[in-house]
């Protein structure tokens, strides 16, 4: 009650302020000028390199006839399936393994810490050298993988990048290889922020192993896990490097994702509008995800 009356009391006073004073807030004289001046660089970057390209892109992709062209393209239809599979498998496998591994890395002992140092290497290595190496490793004739398969098991491995599903699977695995350490480290940080008292209390109540995970760790991590899933989905929807370097979209353009197909249409086919239309077709999925994510981050105050 008291707070409500305080707000009512303060209300008219605020309304009586002139518009100019309202805009300046509590800042005096030259301070307001400084505050605005400090914002100018970012506003400049945002307007010139975010707002302008976004509206330019929307304008480029605004002709409806572009979309009939896009949707009737068989390569695009394949690409749509690829993108859905890539995102679904990529996000869920990656985060599920990251959740399990973050639990593993909570174990005490020097060798687990040492292992963590090795495990984060793929994340420390730039994306491109790693992916180029995997690309060559998967070569059917001269690649390390098939050499090793033949050497150790006497199996003639398939040529990984010459069939659509093997190539797409390879791309998903490569992506997991590169990004699993990153998500594991985040979930590890999430687990470390759980106070040990909670675990001690659970131990007294007899919860160990799987039951501890199901009733203590996971409920506390669930929110973080959900936010990470949303974030990973958004990032993967726009993923370019993985497929570009692992499969190059091949064989016969059968493993493109929306981002790589967009670039191919815009530059290899020299049809930028078509490329923009391909990319824009992801918006019906992207926009709801962004809205859910923003609300989630705002409302739950989750510590990413």
């Amino acid at each position, binding site marked *: 009650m008291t707070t409500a009356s305080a707000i009512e009391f303060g209300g008219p006073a605020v309304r009586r302020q002139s518009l100019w004073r309202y805009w300046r807030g509590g800042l005096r004289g030259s301070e307001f000028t400084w505050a605005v001046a400090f914002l100018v660089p*970012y506003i400049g970057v945002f307007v010139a390199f975010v707002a302008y390209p976004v509206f330019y892109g929307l304008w480029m992709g605004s002709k409806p006839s572009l979309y009939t062209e896009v949707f009737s393209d068989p390569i695009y239809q394949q690409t749509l399936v690829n993108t859905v599979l890539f995102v679904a498998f990529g996000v869920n496998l990656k985060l599920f393994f990251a959740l399990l591994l973050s639990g593993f890395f909570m174990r005490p002992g020097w060798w687990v810490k040492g292992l963590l140092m090795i495990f984060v290497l793929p994340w420390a290595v730039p994306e491109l*050298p790693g992916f180029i190496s995997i690309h060559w490793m998967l070569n059917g004739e001269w690649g390390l993988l098939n050499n090793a398969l033949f050497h150790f098991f006497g199996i003639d491995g398939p040529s990984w990048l010459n069939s659509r599903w093997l190539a797409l699977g390879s791309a998903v695995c490569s992506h997991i290889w590169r*990004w699993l350490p990153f998500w594991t480290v985040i979930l590890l940080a999430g687990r470390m922020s759980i106070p040990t008292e909670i675990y001690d209390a659970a131990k007294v109540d007899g919860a160990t192993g799987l039951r501890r995970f199901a009733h203590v760790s996971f409920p506390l991590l669930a929110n973080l896990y959900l936010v990470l899933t949303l974030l990973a989905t958004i990032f993967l929807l726009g993923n370019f490097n993985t497929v570009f370097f692992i499969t190059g979209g091949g064989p016969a353009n059968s493993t493109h994702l929306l981002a790589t197909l967009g670039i191919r249409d815009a530059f290899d086919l020299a049809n930028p509008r078509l490329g923009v239309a391909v*990319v824009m077709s992801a918006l019906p999925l992207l926009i709801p995800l962004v809205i859910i994510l923003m609300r989630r981050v705002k409302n739950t105050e989750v510590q990413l």
Partner: protein
Amino acid sequence: MSTITADTGPARSATRPAERMQRAARRWRYASNVGAAILSVVLVVWTLTPLYNMVMVAFTAEGDVFSDHLWPPNASGNSFWIVLTQGYWYLEYFWHQFGNSVFIASMVTLLVLTIGSLTTFSVMRMRIRNGWVITNAALLTYVIPASFLAIPFYLIMQHYGLHNNPWSVIAAIVTFATPYAIFIFQEYGRSIPLELDESARIDGASPIQIYFRIYLPLMVPALVAVGTFALLAAWNEYLYQFLLLSNKRSMTVPVALAQFLNSDVAPWNYMMATAIIYALPPIATYYAFRNRMSSGLTMGGVKG
């Protein structure tokens, strides 16, 4: 087992359940250690295979690249020497291109830190009214996939005649890295009491003095975390560099490297040696600032 239980007298039967529990616990600990060891081996193999492949191919001699082997028969470090002395036609501008990469990465770091800290200073410390619009715009930029804006961005840069100009790439990377910086600075800055600014203000300090003398020194840990992130982001970026830099003298190492990926005569040993040299600075940076970076990740947000 049965004989042992038969031998135990009635006096020891009282301790038997406790003993059995102890034995079960020991067995459980043993099984979990074996499981952890197996998992560790799997993780090490999984993590290191592509990196081993990189090193292995780099040490392969000229004629042996297209042959079956798990370790090159005539291993030599000659490829590294060729790369460092620019002794192959596609490597003729290697150091120049390396310099371009360094220039772009350092400018990106500097700009991201400057723009990000100025923006958060104005919004969080000077509390300019409606500052939330700026931070929300930044959050929104953070979740727009960079690859989706590449086509309009490329056309705009063409329009401005900034093709083959490193500043176009710097602008692109700064655009997508600054939101993360704002995010982290915002979170970190909450722990610095506003009273510090207030008292300096009462003593007559101008906003610019408060920014340099109070805000920046207290923000050093966050600046280091974000600076490392920006450096690595610039070093990792490929798509915009590939689109915007096509001239041999203006391109960066990853662009030069990827040019040869799909050609039939790709000199794999030189490419891998280049890749390793290119990967070394970020690996060193990463391990040097690892703890700062992971604390940065838990502070604010995530972006690859």
